[in-house]
């Protein structure tokens, strides 16, 4: 795949920004676009697009698209309780998850019980390998993710069942993207003109699950990739939809996203998981916004296996305003802790932890820093 650099070519990006400013001029103010995905937030700030778009009359607000961030404290604490409370238990999880502060500290700072440990994995496959290598220990994979990650978590649950790996289970925190968009629009706390839809979630689910946004709420949307050129192309499409009064779900990331998504991944999700109401940090309980392992897979569901009683609540630790940031109600610098008590090396909430958390991204690349 040659010449991918052109997607971030200076001349191309400048040209697109000029065109955005031009098309923006004819539209009534304001134009405020929510980028749903944390990786978009990161790209937009890293390449300086946030300020350039503002100068062109387009305001970007971050949405709830960081799974580490929207996972409520109580679930992080349940993981922590397992590794500190059970002997000979290996808790495997993605790196960001180990640094999220809870009322009981973070996994990184936790003191595991005798013979227990926290292990960082890059791929869910590595957690399976840990279980094979350590037959005398329980391995719990603390699997968190949106649709991008969920198929791989469904894959390891299925593989563990096929292998009859008795010492393996998954503590699942699985979130699906379309329902919170509906929740945000219904609440009406933040007025937005359209959504930039996440590229890699869409590579799995396709474009149909967003149709309700155009149909029921009359709002434009565009699926975009992750290079600066991709994002600006998505914004151009949104401006055209606003101008024409014809909201739809545009796909500006056709090289990776098919209208039907990834059928293999979708089938695997449907085979292993059932929809469930789920509580999001900041957003509260949203109908059918989570996925749970099917009852048949209970042997691999850590909640059932260890009799965990998790009662997730949407609230943050005292002072932390991650919940408001995740709803797009405030920008990170509006939080009194931002850049003061809450910094990348001493985070007070998950949005300052995750690689794609809005607070970390603002702190790293933003102009406003106390």
């Amino acid at each position, binding site marked *: 795949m040659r010449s991918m650099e052109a997607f971030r070519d200076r001349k191309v990006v400048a040209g697109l920004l000029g065109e955005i400013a031009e098309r923006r001029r004819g539209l009534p103010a304001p134009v405020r676009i929510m980028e749903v995905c*944390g990786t978009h937030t990161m790209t937009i700030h890293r390449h300086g697009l946030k300020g350039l778009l503002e100068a062109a009359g387009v305001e970007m607000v971050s949405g709830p698209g960081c799974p580490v961030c929207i996972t409520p404290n109580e679930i992080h604490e349940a993981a922590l309780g397992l590794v500190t409370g059970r002997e000979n238990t290996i808790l495997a999880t993605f790196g960001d998850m180990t640094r999220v502060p809870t009322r009981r500290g973070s996994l990184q700072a936790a003191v595991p019980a005798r013979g227990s440990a926290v292990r960082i994995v890059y791929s869910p496959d590595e957690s399976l390998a840990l279980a094979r290598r350590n037959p005398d220990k329980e391995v719990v994979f603390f699997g968190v993710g949106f649709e991008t990650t969920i198929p791989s978590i469904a894959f390891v649950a299925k593989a563990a069942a096929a292998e009859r790996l008795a010492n393996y289970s998954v503590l699942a925190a699985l979130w699906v993207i379309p329902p919170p968009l509906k929740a945000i629009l219904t609440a009406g706390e933040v007025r937005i003109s359209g959504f930039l839809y996440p590229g890699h979630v869409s590579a799995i689910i396709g474009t149909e699950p967003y149709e309700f946004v155009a149909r029921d709420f009359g709002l434009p949307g565009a699926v975009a990739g992750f290079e600066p*050129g991709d994002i600006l192309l998505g914004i151009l499409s949104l401006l055209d939809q606003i101008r024409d009064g014809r909201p739809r779900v545009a796909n500006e990331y056709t090289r990776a996203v098919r209208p039907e998504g990834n059928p293999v991944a979708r089938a695997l999700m449907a085979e292993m998981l059932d929809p469930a109401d789920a509580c999001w940090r900041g957003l509260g309980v949203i109908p059918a916004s989570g996925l749970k392992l099917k009852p048949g897979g209970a042997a691999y569901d850590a909640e059932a296996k260890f009799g965990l009683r998790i009662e997730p609540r949407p609230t943050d630790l005292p002072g932390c305003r991650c919940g408001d940031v995740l709803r797009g109600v405030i920008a990170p610098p509006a939080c009194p802790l931002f850049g003061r008590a809450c910094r990348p090396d001493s985070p007070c909430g998950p949005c300052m932890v995750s*690689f794609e958390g809005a607070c970390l991204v603002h702190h790293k690349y933003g102009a406003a820093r106390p």
Partner: protein
Amino acid sequence: MCLGIPSKVIEVDPALKTGRIDYLGTKIKTNFALLEDVKVGDWVIVHAGFAISRLDESDALETLDLLREVADKA
């Protein structure tokens, strides 16, 4: 979390549906179970050790043409 890396497939075991990809010279073990018929030379998006989507070169080139068209106009 949803960071996906465009990478080239350099090794496939069709029976195990695993293999390796090359990302900027680094060769990384990858699971291909979420895609059908992955072949050496394919370009894929890899996320958390799993290939989740195959990149279509003709679509990529079409998007690039569109980008250049807009940029030249401005």
